[in-house]
């Protein structure tokens, strides 16, 4: 299957000499949700800007739908909708005017019915005649999304789409993103909210210091890099781990009242039943048992630390 976006050996060095992108290679599949994670200044926005044509790559090639973004910019840019990180709006325009402007700018014939549908899907219809200066931050964010969707793009870039929005709106946006993906739109989002990527992404890319340090399917990534823990709340505290279970990957916590067993989910045998048998033999009783799995946030932090 032809990738929707193909990035090959892309570098970006700003006039100041700062290298924002360092030999980036990446393929984005059609109709997937790709989350690009990375600390501040890692190069996420520069990468998006390079694909959208806002920033010129110093070297390398980017293709969208098989076409070069420089020589075939009319074709490639028509396919892309961008929601930038900053709430940049024409303060004195109305919602209707600014969204209609975006549609025209991207070469689409005026279509009031489609604009109406888009505004309704984003709960903006009753604000259509309001000036942007009168809207709340969350509403402005919705307008930015409406502008990006106004020309019916096949690819949507969301740069920190839920920064500064409330929980309800965030969940609405996740729902919208899933709906768009189901409609065949390819979505690339950058986010600081790791749970956002964990919630909606199909694949994850981690960028740091301009380098793409990992690209992986989300579930595979969490299985491969995630650790799972069995937590036992003991009836009596232990001063040390008994000899018959010393070979297990165990830790004592909470003044000896909690025994934690870390195991690999990808192994065929987790060792849990053997451990429980050994505990019984050793006469160690427990009053509660639970499991915990490392989140994408834990994985992300550990990855970023590892490459420091």
């Amino acid at each position, binding site marked *: 299957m032809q990738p929707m976006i193909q990035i090959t050996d892309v570098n970006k060095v700003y006039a100041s000499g700062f290298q924002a992108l360092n030999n980036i290679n990446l393929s984005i599949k059609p109709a997937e949700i790709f989350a690009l994670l990375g600390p501040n200044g890692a190069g996420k926005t520069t990468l998006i800007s390079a694909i959208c044509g806002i920033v010129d790559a110093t070297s390398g090639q980017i293709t969208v739908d098989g076409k070069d973004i420089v020589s075939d910019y009319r074709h490639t840019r028509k396919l892309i909708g961008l929601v930038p990180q900053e709430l940049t*709006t024409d303060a004195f325009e109305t919602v209707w005017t600014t969204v209609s402007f975006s549609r*025209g700018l991207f070469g*689409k014939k005026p279509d009031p019915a489609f604009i109406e549908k888009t505004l309704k899907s984003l709960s903006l219809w009753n604000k259509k005649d309001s000036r942007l200066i009168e809207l709340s931050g969350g509403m402005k964010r919705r307008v930015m999304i409406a502008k990006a969707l106004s020309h019916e793009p096949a690819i949507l870039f969301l740069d920190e789409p839920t920064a500064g929005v409330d929980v309800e709106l965030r969940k609405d946006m996740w729902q919208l993103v899933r709906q768009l993906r189901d409609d065949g739109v390819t979505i690339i989002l950058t986010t600081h909210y790791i749970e956002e990527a964990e919630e909606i992404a199909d694949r994850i890319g981690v960028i740091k210091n301009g380098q793409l340090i990992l690209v992986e399917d989300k579930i595979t990534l969490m299985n491969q890099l995630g650790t799972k823990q069995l937590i036992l709340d003991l009836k009596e505290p232990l001063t040390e781990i008994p000899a018959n279970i010393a070979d297990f990957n165990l830790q004592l916590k909470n003044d000896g009242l909690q025994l934690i067993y870390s195991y690999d989910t990808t192994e065929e045998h987790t060792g849990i039943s053997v451990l429980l048998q050994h505990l019984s033999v050793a006469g160690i009783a427990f009053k509660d048992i639970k499991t915990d799995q490392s989140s994408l946030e834990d994985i992300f932090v550990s990855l970023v630390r590892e490459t420091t």
Partner: protein
Amino acid sequence: MNRYAVAAIYKFEMARTKRTIFQSIISPVISTSLYFVVFGSAIGSRITEIGGVSYGAFIVPGLIMLSLLTQSISNASFGIYFPKFTGTIYELLSAPVSSFEVLLGYVGAAATKSTLLALIILATAHFFVPLEIAHPFWMLFFLVMTAITFSLFGFIIGIWADNFEKLQVIPLIIITPLVFLGGTFYSVSMLPPFWQTVTQFNPVFYLISGFRWSFYEVADVSLITSLCVMGGFLALCLLAVTWIFKSGYQIRK
């Protein structure tokens, strides 16, 4: 040609005029009318004719040029500077539009606005001074070409400016003095020889002279000279804009 994009930019810019009608239309019409009253009717009645034209009528082309130049520059510079200032230029940079289409939208709208304003001022002038237009075609030609040329110049200023002060500095410090010293209120032949020579280096002088000729067939230089200077300045502006778009100066990182 992405005609929908050109139309979108053009309509967007024209809509701003509607929203700011006092600043865009009414204010310049009133201030120019004050010139007609003060210099045309009050002081003008005590000044003899210049080249067979009454003083009140003589200053009309220059005053129209003053508004045309300042409004062309201000409309076009503000039009492209404001998206840079607010950050909405990201949309323009990521849209499937060529540099020519962007220029057509912004400069077209700015030139349209200033041409309409000039025509309103011309109509207003009829209330204060007797007017005749000997060559309506050339009058319109000068009007439209000057509006386009100085809208292009304004577009360049809007790209160059990185704050509001820079946006104002060229129209205020350079254009207004050039118009005032370019023969708006007098014929260059009335100046001492030294100042006549200095005036030859003022490009606006040639525009006013050509424009005035289209009204009264009275000019300080020949029509061809005026047309050549205007064409030369237009070519310079086009070259500068071409370089800006090719290099991405002050637009693309």
